[in-house]
């Protein structure tokens, strides 16, 4: 059980938005990482996903997810991906001024095994359709995670006030 939870770094998109957030030189002194995102993209839908890249590696990602849109629940997945898909966040057709909430939990990020990531995200939309999803993702790469890049799942711009907070968790 975690007994320390420290903010490592954070960032917020300014006017015009940004294409991506990248955390570099992540210290290896924690047990796990937690990445909290509050994001709205400029994609013309109520929801969007994210592409996450670890250590700038563009291969070996896979995921399974369960999700619902307010009417239907479903599950699917993908393998052999160039980036890690996680979600959900708000697209630009979601209720004005709302942002999706997403949390990624990355256990044992500094170890030498494959890296697993659990993600819990909601699109936030005051309407009939609103997406929520749980993603279980894997990076088939063994190096300690020292950098994380987050960008829109469809290469959409992450709009102004979108933010990313990276926390370190220690179990001792």
């Amino acid at each position, binding site marked *: 059980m975690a007994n320390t939870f420290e903010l490592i770094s954070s960032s917020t998109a300014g006017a015009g938005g940004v*294409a991506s957030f990248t955390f570099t030189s992540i210290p290896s002194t924690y047990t796990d990482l937690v990445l909290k995102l509050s994001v709205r993209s400029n994609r013309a839908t109520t929801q969007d996903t994210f592409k996450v890249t670890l250590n700038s590696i563009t291969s070996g990602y896979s995921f399974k997810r369960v999700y619902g849109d307010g009417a239907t629940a479903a599950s699917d997945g993908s393998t052999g991906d160039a980036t890690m898909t996680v979600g959900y966040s708000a697209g630009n057709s979601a209720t004005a001024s709302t942002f999706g909430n997403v949390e990624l939990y990355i256990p044992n990020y500094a170890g030498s095994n494959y890296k697993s990531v659990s993600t819990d995200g909601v699109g936030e939309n005051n309407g009939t359709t609103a997406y929520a999803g749980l993603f279980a993702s894997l990076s088939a790469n063994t190096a300690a995670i020292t950098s994380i890049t987050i960008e829109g799942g469809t290469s959409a711009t992450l709009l102004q006030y979108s933010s990313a907070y990276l926390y370190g968790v220690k179990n001792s």
Partner: protein
Amino acid sequence: MTKMKRIEINCETGVESIIELTDAEVAEMTYAAELAAEKKAEEDAKAASDATAKAALLVKLGITADEAKLLLA
């Protein structure tokens, strides 16, 4: 015109850099967004086509959607 930017945060130093995308990065981003828009348009068109076909079949059979559900249950 202002170029799209990306944010890089060095966790060791705490320094945040705001970096303009290169022309190649902008082109790649635009292409990926266009592909995604095309894919969504295809999915929307298929969903609309399926709904139309389903409605036509119900009319042909002379039953409602609820009655069709009952038959398949």
